[in-house]
C-alpha cells in the first residue's frame, strides 16, 4: 500500500525543503559571524545530500519508506562541515561576505524550486480528488 502520496515526489521535495532550511540557518549564522575572529564558516554539502537523495529514490523507488531511506538519517544535517577551501583572513576568520550571500541566494532558489514543484503536485492531487482541474 503506497498511501496517497506514494508515487509522488512530495516526500523527496520535503527532504529538499528541510535541507534548504537547515542550510539557510547555517549560512545566516556565517553572516552573523562575519567579523568574529577565528570563526570558521559552516556549510552543508549539497552534492552529498543530492547523491544520498538520488540513491535512496533509486534503491527504494518509494521515498516514503523512510525507515530504510538513507537520506533521512539525521547525521546528514548534524555534520556542518568546516569549509576549508576559503582563504583565512588575518583574524583567523574565513567568512567571505560575497560568497555567503551568493550561497544564500542559491539556497533560496532551491527552496523556491522545491516549494513550486510541491505546489503543482498538490494541485494535481486536488484535481484528482475533486475531479476537476
Amino acid at each position, binding site marked *: 500500500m503506497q498511501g496517497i502520496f506514494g508515487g509522488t515526489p512530495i516526500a523527496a521535495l520535503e527532504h529538499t525543503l528541510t535541507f534548504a532550511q537547515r542550510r539557510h540557518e547555517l549560512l545566516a549564522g556565517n553572516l552573523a559571524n562575519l567579523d568574529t575572529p577565528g570563526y570558521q564558516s559552516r556549510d552543508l554539502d549539497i552534492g552529498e545530500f543530492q547523491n544520498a537523495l538520488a540513491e535512496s529514490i533509486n534503491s527504494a523507488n518509494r521515498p516514503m519508506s523512510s525507515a530504510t531511506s538513507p537520506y533521512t538519517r539525521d547525521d546528514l544535517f548534524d555534520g556542518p562541515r568546516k569549509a576549508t577551501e576559503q582563504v583565512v583572513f588575518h583574524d583567523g576568520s574565513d567568512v*567571505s561576505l*560575497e*560568497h555567503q550571500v*551568493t550561497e544564500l541566494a*542559491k539556497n533560496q*532558489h532551491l527552496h523556491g*524550486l522545491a516549494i*513550486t*514543484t510541491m505546489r*503543482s503536485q498538490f494541485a494535481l492531487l486536488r484535481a484528482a480528488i475533486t475531479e476537476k482541474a
Partner: protein
Amino acid sequence: MLNALDISTSALVAQRTRLNAVSGNIANMSSLTDETGKPNPYKAREVVFQTDDTMSLSGASGVKVAEIKSDNADPLYRYQPNHPLAIKEGEWEGYVAYPNIDLTTQMVDALESTRAYEANVGVMEITKNLSRETLTILA
C-alpha cells in the same frame, strides 16, 4: 544557470580586493616608514586580475586575483632639511622621500572598481530574475 552566480561572485571578491588596495594606497599616501619603522616610503599596491577557468561549465570564465604588485616608481623627494627622516648624505641630502602616489589615479581606480562591483551585482540580479521566471512556468 546558477553557475553565473559563482562567476559574478568571483568578480565581486576581486573588485573588493582592488578597492581594499586603493584604500590602503590612499591611507598611506604620507607614510614615510615601513612596518618595521625604517625610513622606506610606502609603495602603491596594484592588484592584478587573472581569468579563472576552474568554475566554468559553459566556457565562461570567472576572475581571480593573480597577485598584488608593488609599484616601482621612484619616491617623491621634498627638500626638508630639518625633518628627522631627511636623507643625511648623497645626491638627495636634505630631502625627505615621500610615497609616489597619484591621488587622481587612485580615486579613478576606486570609482572604477565600485562601478564594476555594482555591474556584477546587477548581473546577479538578472540571473536570479531569470531563474525566478523559469519557476513560474510550473506554477
